[in-house]
């Protein structure tokens, strides 16, 4: 005891040794060698499996210089893929936003039997293989599908066209907005809405003036993740797209086609755009998570 007292009074060097000896005695700390080993392993694992793949995309994309990179992106096929991807993402985000808000409102503001089951159903697309997500629409709308003959008679094209790609994308991004909103709105409860109604507000006034401002970060969060997945979806879209050049290839599909044609720079150039989208999404996600935390009610 007395030794510690004297140590505490001495400046810098000895004070640090006190802290070190305290750490050694901390019941919640592992020996230094174990600590170093765990940190090293974690960093090595994440670097090899996550950082390196990310770096290699950009290195390959710029492997022949900036000019080759830009000319790859200027290709009309690239432009058509970018336009299609943006269009599909806009449609999926839009529809799933409306659905997600409706589902979250019904689930969090009311009590009804089977609520947990409904949430499980909404989550379902997350656990379906992307290829199967595409397959189900082929079985519905394909030439041999349930609705195929009828569609042919009426000259309607769903598969191998924009509607099919959009449907498959909506399917795989279905849960994102609802999942982002349900826990947040559950935490926030119904009191503010009840207060608004008792003050004479209509349902829409209550939603737009009270609910929406409270969940705006959650909505953005859901839209962000939904958009990232919509733009990046590969398996499901691959099955329903038909790979018609310049028409039904989204950006990820173009990455595959160019890669298989050994157009590495072009393939990785498109891939680098998608990788940047992923990085921006992650940064925005981190910021949004902080804001959403602020919207969670804190008991006082």
């Amino acid at each position, binding site marked *: 005891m007395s030794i510690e007292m004297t140590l505490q009074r001495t400046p810098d060097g000895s004070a640090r040794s006190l802290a070190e000896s305290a750490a050694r005695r901390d019941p919640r700390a592992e020996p230094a060698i174990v600590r170093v080993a765990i940190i090293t392993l974690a960093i090595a694992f994440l670097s090899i499996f996550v950082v390196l793949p990310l770096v290699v995309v950009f290195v390959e994309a710029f492997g022949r210089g900036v000019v080759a990179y830009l000319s790859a992106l200027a290709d009309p096929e690239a432009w058509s893929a970018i336009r299609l991807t943006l269009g599909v993402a806009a449609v999926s985000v839009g529809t799933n936003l409306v659905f997600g808000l409706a589902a979250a409102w019904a689930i969090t503001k009311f009590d009804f039997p089977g609520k947990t089951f409904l949430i499980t159903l909404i989550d379902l697309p997350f656990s379906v293989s992307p290829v199967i997500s595409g397959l189900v629409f082929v079985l519905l709308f394909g030439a041999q599908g349930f609705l195929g003959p009828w569609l042919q008679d009426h000259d309607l094209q769903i598969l191998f066209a924009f509607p099919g790609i959009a449907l498959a994308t909506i399917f795989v991004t279905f849960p994102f907005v609802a999942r982002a909103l349900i826990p947040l709105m559950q935490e926030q409860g119904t009191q503010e809405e009840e207060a608004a109604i008792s*003050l*004479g*507000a209509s349902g829409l*006034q209550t939603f737009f*003036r009270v609910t929406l401002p*409270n969940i705006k970060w959650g909505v953005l969060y859901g839209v962000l993740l939904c958009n990232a997945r919509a733009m990046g979806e590969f398996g499901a879209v691959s099955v329903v797209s038909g790979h018609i050049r310049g028409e039904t290839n989204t950006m990820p599909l173009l990455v595959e086609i160019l890669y298989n044609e050994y157009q590495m720079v072009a393939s990785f150039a498109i891939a680098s755009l998608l990788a940047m989208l992923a990085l921006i999404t992650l940064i925005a996600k981190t910021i949004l998570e902080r804001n959403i935390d602020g919207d969670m*009610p804190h008991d006082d």
Partner: protein
Amino acid sequence: MTIEARGVVKSFGAFKALDGVDLKVANGELLALLGPSGSGKTTLLRIIAGLEWPDAGEILFDGENALDRGARERHVGFVFQHYALFRHMNVFENVAFGLRVQPRRIRKTEAQIRARVKELLDLVQLDWLADRYPSQLSGGQRQRIALARALAIEPRILLLDEPFGALDAKVRKELRQWLRTLHHSINVTSIFVTHDQEEALEVAHRVVVMDKGRIEQVGSPSDVYDSPATAFVHGFIGESIMLPVEVTGGAVHLNGRPLDIAVEGGAAGASTLFVRRHDMLIGPADSGTLHGAVTHVRSFGPVQRAEIALTEGSTIEIDAPRDRELRIGDRVGLKPRHYRIFAGG
């Protein structure tokens, strides 16, 4: 406005929150719904506000059916237990909300709204907080803003759910007085819910005591305190000594020994004798009708509280004036000055 509830029943699953409630509230009255948690008082308040719907029964405002109308059309000012202030709006916008959402044809102009909000913030003495957000306010301030917001729509009825429940003891006492004064100045029929008997007795004109979804007694504070109608009310309000007694042949027996008191009320068979702690008079060992020895004494304030082991077999606590100092081991005789006997053990 008068409020009337007739045969109101409400269940949540298997739990019966309200089990046939009848109640009349006079115009301009300040009424307290008092009861332990789970007694149904908040459910009754929410049904009156239109935030909950009864399974059976009627709610009448000035004799008109209120159940036809939703919360939005009832013009009821509701103050939530946790205030439910709009967290993304500042104080001014919170109070202005009810005015801003009015249909366009009756909506006030911006200048009128500003004037009205200012007036309300002055009323609750918080005009200097207009630009703050709810998270920057203390509990007592939030409470008063919630009240100002409810009053903005000029409600016909004011309902408050545990208005002081979430506040610390000192603020509670200040706000009690303030609420009484405020009610006096606005004179709107008001009902508040509380589990704190002191709060109910001190603030309200009339107190409704509830238990297990039923009304046990309605009366003035002195009614419910001095003449409890049921065993529950006697036990819930004020501090009482409860002794299990047997009423047979016009006499009251404790542990088989007759007590020298008259049978009161219609009790017969196994019953409970209720005596307020300060209504148990203390005298020499040979006096009174109950006898025992002092086992513990605490002296503070105007009374001394003594724990007495009765020779009849129970231990009771009484409040005695401090004119005669009690000591541990003193043998005493006791006689109830006022008491009630209710059937049931």
